[in-house]
């Protein structure tokens, strides 16, 4: 019974954390960061960096997406269950992409 009570208390504490209200300054900061990164990625695309053009553009995109997920979508303030859900989903997605790519790279990459 005690153990059960503790678990319930713990869950309540976690839920209380989940109700965290994110304040407008945080949203404003993320908004401007996203705009600056958009300008940066557009600007970088005019500089010839060879294969690194694609690498940098995708790295900036991943960083922007992380900002959106963590702050606009509140994952930074969420319970472990939600953090695990997002992580597990992205892991599965990367797994599927890697397996597909492994197949294509080892067979017909670059052939038409």
């Amino acid at each position: 019974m005690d153990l059960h009570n503790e678990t319930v208390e713990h869950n309540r504490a976690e839920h209380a954390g989940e109700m965290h209200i994110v304040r407008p300054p945080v949203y404003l900061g993320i908004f401007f960061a996203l705009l600056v990164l958009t300008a940066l990625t557009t600007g970088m695309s005019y500089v010839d960096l060879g294969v690194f053009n694609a690498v940098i553009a995708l790295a900036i995109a991943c960083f922007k997406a992380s900002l959106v997920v963590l702050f606009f979508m509140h994952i930074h303030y969420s319970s472990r269950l939600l953090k695990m859900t997002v992580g597990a989903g992205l892991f599965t997605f990367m797994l599927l992409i890697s397996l597909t790519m492994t197949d294509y790279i080892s067979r017909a990459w670059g052939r038409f």
Partner: protein
Amino acid sequence: MDSQAYASATDTLPAEHGHPPFLRHHFESVSQQREAANFGMWVFLLTEVMFFGGMFCAYLIFRNWYHPAFVAGSNTLDITLGTTNTAVLIASSFTMAMSVYAAEIRRRGMLMFFLACTIVLGFVFLGIKGVEYHQKFVDHHVPGPSFSIEEFVHPSNPKALALTPDMAEKTQLYFSLYFLMTGMHALHMIIGISLLFFLLWRAYQGAYTEGHVMPIENFGLYWHFVDIIWIFLFPLLYLISRYR
């Protein structure tokens, strides 16, 4: 363990029934109900990640197979309109985030204002997208019988690389993926805007400013997800081949 005790201890709205009217009986508390709904929304969004992921994967593979055609196709897009649309969509995500905040601090007028802003920005995005689509029809760059490889075999820009007719045909694949991916994204926007009108109407009735934040929050997750898809579409379709 009296579940009702928790409901009334945690939550501040004891109606005559002992809990707020929007709390379903199978949940212990409003926060537990909100967490469960959030979890369900995220699982749905992960299925959406897989849905768009398949298209991204196809783009990646074909881009590497027919690289010159994809570079030529990408360079026909208007980078100014693309960048503007990215900024518009990010702004709409910001106003949506502010809508969630307005619902959380229970300000009905503020909630309606930010929901309306999100609708307007959504329409601006679709409008600019429409201008871009129209230009593709004018240029005969829509895959199908009217598609013309002329611009890719004999480029009007002297610095651009001329493609062989075989490779120039493959630009149709680029434009097919372009219309598929941006079209699916635009469809998600149209569904989102329709839901926003419903939310605006319910917000006007005061449905979300009495503690029942969950529908606004979950719709926010959907809207931000659509924003994330564009955050990846924009560099892939517009940017990464720009300097060739």
